[in-house]
């Protein structure tokens, strides 16, 4: 038994894996970028509220980015998440407005369940089509996106504002932390405010990180994404694993829709338009590979924060224009993609070199440095 324990420990102390490496790069870049913004733009960036604002504004994006990370680790893709958010927001807004139930708690609970139900329905349908009927995930989720967007406009072409009083009260509920606040010019202390949605998003990140690391399903998703054939040979039920990854993804997208509604209580046909692409970009910046098997939800979280920080910096700087924002996003994405490719190929090369060195000269542990 102790032998086994030792083995586990030695496994944990192995050098950084690729996923961790990429994750640390993105965390580092986030920190550097934020510090640079603090030094050059000052103003809002010096207050802790800025970080909470980033979280508040991007809670839904963080959740769908996590949902995409799970699917992408499994080797798939889900481009319907933005559409699911749009549909959820619209149908929840309509449901709340038409709701005749006296108890406000029950009506909000039902809305929440409706949001999760829509996400679950999409997740189950897409998961079934992808895993058991072996249809390409891109096409299945593209159809899912079309369906969700189409249903949204069938429900209502015009924007729908939530008029449910209790829900609007809920929207205003914010967690206030006074010691992180700042004093305004008139001497009042303004506490830092965190919305419920941001807390939910952080909880989702933590839960997903734990799930991917310690739950059997999470490990299976990594195995299936890394190599389907060998996962199958290990006795993993590949189809069921992929199915569940889509179910989780759909469920999280539904949750993201509810969170979005809590941030902006209005349904609109263009809610979270292109949200899926932002989510994919966040996942990639956070170190997830589209080929599957490599990725990390914590990295994804920082990927989202990087995109959000760019957005804030451009909004606060004199370059405030939507096209600057898109260009900066594109440039950032390009930079990360090339960086990842270079880092991974360099690491794999050095690993091959190490391995061959070990095989060629096993007795000499610390020989003179070899010349190339």
């Amino acid at each position, binding site marked *: 038994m102790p032998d086994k324990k030792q083995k586990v420990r030695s496994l944990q102390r192995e050098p950084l894996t690729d996923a961790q490496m990429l994750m640390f790069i993105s965390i580092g870049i986030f920190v550097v970028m934020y510090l640079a913004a603090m030094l050059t733009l000052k103003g809002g960036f010096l207050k802790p509220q800025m970080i909470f604002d980033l979280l508040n504004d991007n809670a839904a994006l963080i959740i769908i980015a996590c949902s995409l990370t799970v699917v992408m680790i499994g080797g798939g*893709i889900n481009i319907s998440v933005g559409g699911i958010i749009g549909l959820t927001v619209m149908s929840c807004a309509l449901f709340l407005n038409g709701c005749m139930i006296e108890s406000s708690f029950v009506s909000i609970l039902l809305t929440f369940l409706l949001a999760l139900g829509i996400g679950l329905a999409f997740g189950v349908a897409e998961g079934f*089509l992808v895993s*058991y*009927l*072996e*249809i*390409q995930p*891109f*096409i*299945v989720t*593209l*159809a*899912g*996106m*079309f*369906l969700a*967007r*189409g*249903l949204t*406009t*069938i429900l209502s*072409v015009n924007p729908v504002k939530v008029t449910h009083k209790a829900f609007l009260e809920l929207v205003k509920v914010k967690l206030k932390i006074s010691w992180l606040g700042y004093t305004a010019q008139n001497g009042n202390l303004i506490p830092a405010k965190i919305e419920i949605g941001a807390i939910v998003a952080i909880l989702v990140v933590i839960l997903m990180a734990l799930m991917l690391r310690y739950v059997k399903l999470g490990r299976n998703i990594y195995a299936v994404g890394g190599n389907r054939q060998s996962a199958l040979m290990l006795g993993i039920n590949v189809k069921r694993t992929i199915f569940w990854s889509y179910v989780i993804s759909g469920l999280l997208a539904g949750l993201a829709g509810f969170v979005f509604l809590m941030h902006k209580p209005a349904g609109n*046909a263009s809610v979270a338009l292109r949200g899926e*692409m932002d989510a*994919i*970009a966040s996942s*990639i910046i956070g170190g997830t*590979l*589209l*080929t599957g098997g490599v990725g990390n939800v914590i990295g994804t979280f920082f990927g989202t924060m990087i995109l959000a920080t760019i957005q804030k910096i451009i909004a606060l700087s004199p370059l405030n224009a*939507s*096209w*600057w924002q*898109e*260009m900066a*996003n*594109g*440039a950032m*994405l*390009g930079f990360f*993609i*090339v960086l990842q*490719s*270079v880092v991974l*190929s360099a690491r794999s090369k050095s690993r091959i070199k190490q391995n061959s060195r070990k095989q060629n000269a096993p007795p000499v542990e610390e020989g003179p440095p070899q010349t190339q």
Partner: protein
Amino acid sequence: MNTKKKAGAGLGQLLIPLVALGILIVFNLFRDLGFFAISMRVNNSGNIVLTGNLISIIDSASELAIIAMGMTLVTAACGGQDISVGAVGAIAGAVFVKILQGMGAITVGSVLLGLLLCCLATILFKLFNGTLVAVFRIQPMIATLILYSCGRSIAYWINGDATPQLNSPIISSIGMTIPGIPIPTPIFAVLLVGLLMFLVFKFTSLSLYTQSVGINAGAARLNGINPTLIKLLSFALLGVCVSVASVIGVCRLGQLNHKTLLVDIEMDAILAVAIGGNNLGGGRFKLSGSILGAYIIQMLTTTLYAMNVAPVNVKAYKAIVIIIIVVAGSPVVKSKLTEFWNRTRSVRQTKELSKRGVS
């Protein structure tokens, strides 16, 4: 027997799209015979043109069909899709209009020069994508996500926020009809591009090379094919397709709007490739399947419009039909169906045999 089997195997990929097209046609026959009516009409500029739903389907699917051809090549060679075609198309349109404005008068020569330079620009942008895919070995979808998110901003940067108008008989004859010829010009453009591709594949080994790179790039390299070159070539060809489609799109409206030119066409083009029975994971491909897929998508859209479905709601119905088509074409359903077919046939055969034995 042998040749019959081979012909059947060749048709196999096209079976699902052909059946889908057939069902759409039959559905329209039962719904409204007038859907197929084609009539001669004098248009605004005084030319006699053919009008009717069929003509409009074939005409308005032109951009999609042209881009779907290029997309098929990229899919086959790289095992992934390019999602930046719409954005790069907007850039191409911006370059085209900028050159025409710079030249002053719109003549045949300036239009040709504009087309040439706009081809050059798109090829450059596509080679950027291609380099990321072929040299840096990045998944095509991720590599093209960059231009997807900032392509339209580049188009805006080239041409500003205005929507420049192009008023010239040459522009309208490219986008609509040439005086004296009743068939819309974009149809000829599809035929031309299709014919060129067909000739290229007929007389070179590009098709074989592309397929082998798509199936196994390493094995292709060991056999003396340069996978990097083939992948770059497929992206360059897609660039040419995109610029032709974008010029048609600009000429059709007679104006450039960088926000709406070829918007969302990447999704439709990928769908066309998938409906055409091509494997989105690369390898074997059939251009005819993708072209057929493009016309199916357009026919579906036009049918829905004819049934008074609001344009914003079309997506939902489209999604349902797409799911039906891909489920019918999915490998699992296919193998189940062939199993079922074989079983019934063997049952029939044994019955016949037993009958013969009795008699």
